[in-house]
C-alpha cells in the first residue's frame, strides 16, 4: 500500500501549511500587535460591550488573522440571550392530525 502511495501519491501539502502560517505570522508582525496588547484589548472590549449587553465573558475570543479581505482583528463575542431559545418546528406537538382522525371517527 505504501509502495503504491509512493509511486502515485502526492505529499502532505506542507507548502499550503507554510503559506497559511506565513500569512498569520505576518498579520501579527505587520500590525505590531503583541499577544500582550491583544489580551489588554480583549479585557477592554469585554468591559465596553458588557455595559450594553450581557455576554459570555469566558468564551470571548480576540485575535489577529488573515482573510480574503486582508489582515483583520477579529473579536468573537457570545451574547447571552434574554429568553430561552425557541425549539425547531419538528419537535412541536402534533395536535392537528389527531383532531382530523377524531372527526373521521365521529
Amino acid at each position, binding site marked *: 500500500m505504501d*509502495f503504491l502511495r*509512493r*509511486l502515485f501519491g*502526492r*505529499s*502532505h*501539502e*506542507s*507548502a*499550503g501549511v*507554510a*503559506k497559511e*502560517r*506565513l*500569512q498569520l*505570522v*505576518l498579520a501579527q*508582525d*505587520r500590525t505590531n500587535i503583541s499577544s500582550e496588547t491583544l489580551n489588554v484589548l480583549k479585557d477592554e472590549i469585554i468591559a465596553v460591550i458588557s455595559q450594553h449587553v450581557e455576554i459570555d465573558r469566558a468564551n470571548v475570543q480576540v485575535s489577529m488573522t488573515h482573510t480574503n479581505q486582508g489582515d483583520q482583528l477579529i473579536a468573537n463575542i457570545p451574547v447571552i440571550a434574554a429568553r430561552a431559545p425557541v425549539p425547531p418546528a419538528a419537535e412541536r406537538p402534533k395536535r392537528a392530525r389527531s383532531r382530523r382522525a377524531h372527526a373521521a371517527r365521529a
Partner: protein
Amino acid sequence: MPGRVITITSGKGGVGKTTATANIGVALARRGQRVACVDADIGLRNLDVVMGLENRIVYDLVDVVEGRARLRQALIKDKRLPELQLLPAAQTRDKSAVNEKQMTKLCDDLKKEFDFVLIDSPAGIERGFKNSIAPADELLIIVTPEVSAVRDADRVIGLVEANEKPSPKLIINRLRPAMVKRGEMMDTADVLEVLAIELIGIVPEDDTIITSTNKGQPVALEDRSAAGAAFTRIARRLLGEDVPFQVFDESPGLLERFARLFRNP
C-alpha cells in the same frame, strides 16, 4: 548620465545576496555595462571570494572612507571582464567603521564612473543594512521560498518603504521545481501573494553554484548553468528588456519514480 546604485538585500542570511550580486554584476559587464560591485559586509567579507578576487585586495572600502587610499587604488579590476570592478569590504573592522553619509558619498563618486553600482548588503537590519540602503536608487530583495526567509523579507520591505526608498523588486532564489510540484515547497505565486512586490527574477536551485564558488568563477561567466541563465535574465530586465519568466517544470516521469523507490526504501 550617472550610474544606477542598486542594493541587494534580504534580511535573512544565507539566501544568496552575495552570489546574486556577483553574478548580476558579471552578466551586466558581459553586456558591456561598467559595473562596480561593492561589498558592504564589513568584517565578514565574501564578495571577493565568490568573485575569485580575494588574492588581489590591497585596499578596501574602509581605507577609502578613512582617507588612506583613493577609490581608484582600492577598486580591483576583474581580468576576465575589464568592465567589472570590485570594492572589497574590510575584514578586520566591523559595521561601525562606516556611516550612511560616508556610504552615500562613496556611491556618488562611483556613480560618475560606472553604469551600475551593485551593493552587496549584509544580513540583518542594523547598521550594515542601513549603510547599504542609504545610497540606493533601486533595491532588490532576495528571498528563498521558505517561511523564515519570506518573513524577514517582509520586515525588510517595510523598513525600506519607511525609509522612503522606491519599492524593491523581488528575486526568488533556490527554487526547487520538483518540491514545488509535490506541494512541499511554496511556489512563486505563493511568495508573490504574501510579499506583494514586483518580481524581477526566479533562480532555480543549482549545484553548479557550489562548484563555481569553490573555484571563484561566477556561473554567469558562461552560458552553461540554469542559475547562470537566470541571473543573466535578471541583468537583461535591469537593462529594460522585456524577458518572460521561465516556467520551471520538473515533474519526474513514472519510470524515474519507480527507479527512485528502489534507491530510497
